[in-house]
């Protein structure tokens, strides 16, 4: 039974590769099969559906531009030769964002890793800079990312903006979709003579979270946050719903400055091997990053008031030899930690819309029990505290997975389906008129990450279900 659209059959892209390599010289490339295959992967295998669908899809050649001029050269050559081109950061996506469905060139951006400027919290940066290295340069100047994915130690800034949506810090600054954080993007078009286009203001949304289907990002201008001093800690609770109510109360405690609030039921937390010495058998936890000092002091009162116990506390949020930074137990890392132990697990991405989110969580939690161990991420969404679910799912069949998804949606909890490689069926929901028109202008031959945008295939703007809730 196939509930999810199938990708095209895997096949190498047929072209004169030697001539292409000559044309793009002196741009660096790699064609060694094992490396090309490695650079054609992301974490799509979290999903048993995508694992089956995409397991044999690879690019043909990895190209590694070192500056904007080289990107232009490669883009022009691809356009002239009609070679598919898939842009890649670190490959930490979860639904094949950076996986080529039609072979061709994988454009590895990691050599473009320079900070261009940092002024009054506005950072101009090349896309290939890893988030951890980015912050290593900005934190000494008093600035940090407003939010980052749990893959901070490996992901690139370009990959995050093109393939991500929110993360650690979204409890303060919302998501990438919100105005403000992404100030402008400079993209290269894929045409015979590529153009450099700077998108500012609301126009940046043509490229944010579009999986590189709408141009090649070569420079980003993003707003940072003033850096706080953070502490990691874990609160343990007797009852899962008590932990959720605590998380909500903390989210709404304006004077307790926090960066991460993730309630995780025992059914998921039990897989956290490195945390095992601190966790209490059977007890749900809330993974927290809170500002050191007055916020931490007030947090302890709040934990106690909700019947919880602080079982782990550490100054700083960078991790140590025994325990990695706690954000590596949150967001998609929760799933990863579980998958390290149990390969049969998969997951969901859910919005529990405010203001009824706590009740909706309880309903789903009671309904599915240990088949869907609940993991929540509290965020600010359009100015209100809400939560996403990245629940684990004990996978049995596609039919059952579909049933679980349908049940959530029937109860008013939209699923950002992590089992599809299609933009519109996942978090993006909508490819509107302006995005579609921009695609036609920036990629007239449909070479950028082909197969990901339903609107392109259908030659018209599209909207998935729940078009009003987008990532």
């Amino acid at each position, binding site marked *: 039974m196939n509930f999810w659209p199938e990708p095209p059959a895997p096949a190498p892209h047929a072209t004169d590769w030697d001539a292409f390599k000559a044309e793009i010289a002196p741009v660096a490339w790699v064609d060694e099969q094992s490396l090309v295959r490695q650079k054609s992967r992301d974490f799509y295998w979290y999903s048993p559906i995508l694992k089956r669908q995409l397991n044999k899809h690879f690019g043909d050649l990895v190209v590694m531009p070192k500056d904007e001029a080289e990107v232009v050269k490669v883009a022009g050559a691809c356009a002239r030769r009609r070679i598919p081109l898939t842009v890649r950061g670190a490959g930490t996506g979860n639904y094949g964002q950076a996986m080529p469905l039609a072979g061709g060139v994988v454009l590895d951006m990691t050599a473009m890793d320079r900070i261009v400027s940092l002024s*009054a919290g506005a950072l101009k940066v090349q896309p290939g800079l890893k988030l951890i290295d980015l912050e290593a340069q900005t934190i000494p100047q008093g600035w940090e990312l407003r939010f980052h994915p749990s893959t901070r130690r490996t992901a690139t800034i370009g990959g995050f903006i093109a393939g991500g949506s929110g993360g650690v810090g979204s409890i303060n*600054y919302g998501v990438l979709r919100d*105005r403000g954080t992404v100030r402008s993007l400079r993209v290269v078009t894929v045409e015979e003579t590529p153009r450099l286009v700077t998108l*500012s*203001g609301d126009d940046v949304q043509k490229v944010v979270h579009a999986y590189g289907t709408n141009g090649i990002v070569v420079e980003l201008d993003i*707003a940072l946050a003033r850096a706080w001093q953070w502490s990691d800690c874990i609160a343990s609770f007797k009852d899962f719903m008590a932990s959720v109510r605590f998380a909500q109360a903390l989210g709404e405690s304006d*004077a307790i400055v926090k960066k991460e609030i993730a309630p995780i039921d025992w059914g998921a937390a039990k897989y956290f091997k490195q945390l095992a010495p601190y966790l209490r058998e059977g007890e749900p936890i809330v993974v927290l990053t809170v500002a*050191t000092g007055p*916020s931490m002091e007030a947090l302890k009162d709040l934990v106690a008031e909700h019947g919880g116990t602080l079982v782990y506390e550490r100054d700083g949020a960078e991790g140590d030899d025994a325990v990695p930074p706690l954000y590596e137990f949150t967001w998609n890392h929760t799933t990863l930690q579980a998958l390290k132990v149990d390969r049969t697990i998969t997951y969901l991405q859910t919005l529990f819309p405010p203001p009824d989110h706590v009740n909706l969580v309880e309903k789903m939690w009671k309904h599915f029990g240990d088949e869907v161990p609940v993991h929540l991420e509290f965020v600010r969404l359009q*100015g209100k505290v809400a939560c996403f679910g990245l629940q684990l799912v004990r996978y049995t069949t596609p039919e059952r997975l579909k049933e679980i998804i349908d049940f959530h949606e029937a109860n008013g909890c939209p699923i950002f389906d992590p089992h599809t490689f299609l933009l519109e069926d996942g978090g993006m929901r909508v490819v509107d008129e302006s995005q579609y028109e921009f695609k036609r202008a920036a990629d007239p031959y449909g070479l950028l990450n082909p197969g990901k945008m339903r609107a392109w295939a259908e030659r018209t703007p599209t909207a998935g279900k729940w078009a009003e809730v987008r990532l």
Partner: protein
Amino acid sequence: MDGTAPAYDLAGYRKAVSGIDIVDDPQLVRLKSRDFFWYSPILKAELNRKSADLVVVPKDQDEALRAIGACAQFRIPLVVRGGGTGNYGQLVPLKGGILLDTAKLDRALFVRPGAARFEAGANLVEIDKQARAIGWEMRMHPSTKRMSAIGGFVAGGAAGVGSAMLGQLRDWGSIPGVRVATCEAVPRVLDLRGRDVAGATHAYGTTGIILEVEIALAPVWPWFDSVVAFDDFMDAARFGQALGEADGIVKKEIAVCAWPIPAWFKALKTECPEGKHVAFCMIAESDRAAYEALAADHEGRVTAWRPTPDETVPGETPIYEYCWNHTTLQALKVDKGVTYLQTVFPIGRNLEVVEKMYRHYGDEVMLHLEFQRRFGRVNNSALQVVRWTTKERLYEIIRHHEAEGCIIPNPHTYTLEDKGPKVVAGDRQLAFKRHADPHGLLNPGKMTRWTPQ
């Protein structure tokens, strides 16, 4: 005092505090016994003649404890003064006695990333100067920052510039600790932390004498002052709400003033065009484009964008000095026929009620909104400028607002209870007062629930 001789031994008191600076010139004492209660015509009549008998100005905490202990010993009422910037007689002595001026208790105990601790009399501009030297600032401050003291702010204030993102003073985490002296013959010094802080804060000094305040700090952003002009008042109000809810735009202040309030702001003539409703905002420099796009969405035109001036440099007026209670002050400077209200609109349907009031009252109740985080959500309060006629009419207006679901912390009375402190905090204050002020000498008459035992 009201001209009657005090019933207590002032001479004995003076002897007991010998060596400590005192002020006894009646004119100066009366001056020190006042705050901005004259915003309210009702309080002006009630409080105008009130004064302490004597001002004592301790130069350190040891002297303060002596001055306090002597009050208990001689059973003399005691009121503490910070900058005297309250608006409803928080510090006005109703029963004479001693006014303890904290002006010289202004030492910094520590200033470090995330938190600072000062003696109660420390001036807020001075606190921010020291915090900014290490890259931090006060999370919130009143519009009277130049004049106010930290002890006065936490004893008499509730929120301010900065509450747009960081909530209220009473939220856990804003004030991690206070040091309080009890009013006993041998005063005890108590360090309150966590929830216990609520026994002493926002109690007008009725429950203990605040000697030191520890405040949470926030990292300092490059703030810009900005003004947006609107043709339609409700566009301006919706902009205020939307800006509050725009998580990707970092802000410190969002005030919205209906025309004709801006007509009183003579110095802002170019930024506040004739007939336009305005928003006064403080925004992080990096978020300018997003802020301007949001203003444009709401048919607003940005008429000013400039760095927030440093208060230590004279001659420039930060935009926040047109916000909070300064809005009323700027109006009163020009037109003595106005007064004001303080209103918390019902969360979730705040704009609906704002619109109703706007249409209903027109220029009689001119809306000045302050958008802020309350319990995690964006809501607006209001400090409406009211065209004064009679007390009866004012109370009619108040009752109408209450009937529509608003809460009015009434600025026309001087009692704590009329400000509607949450019952929990009120109980905590009362319990703490029983413990710290057994003779009921602290700011008598302000806490109506207090009864001598």
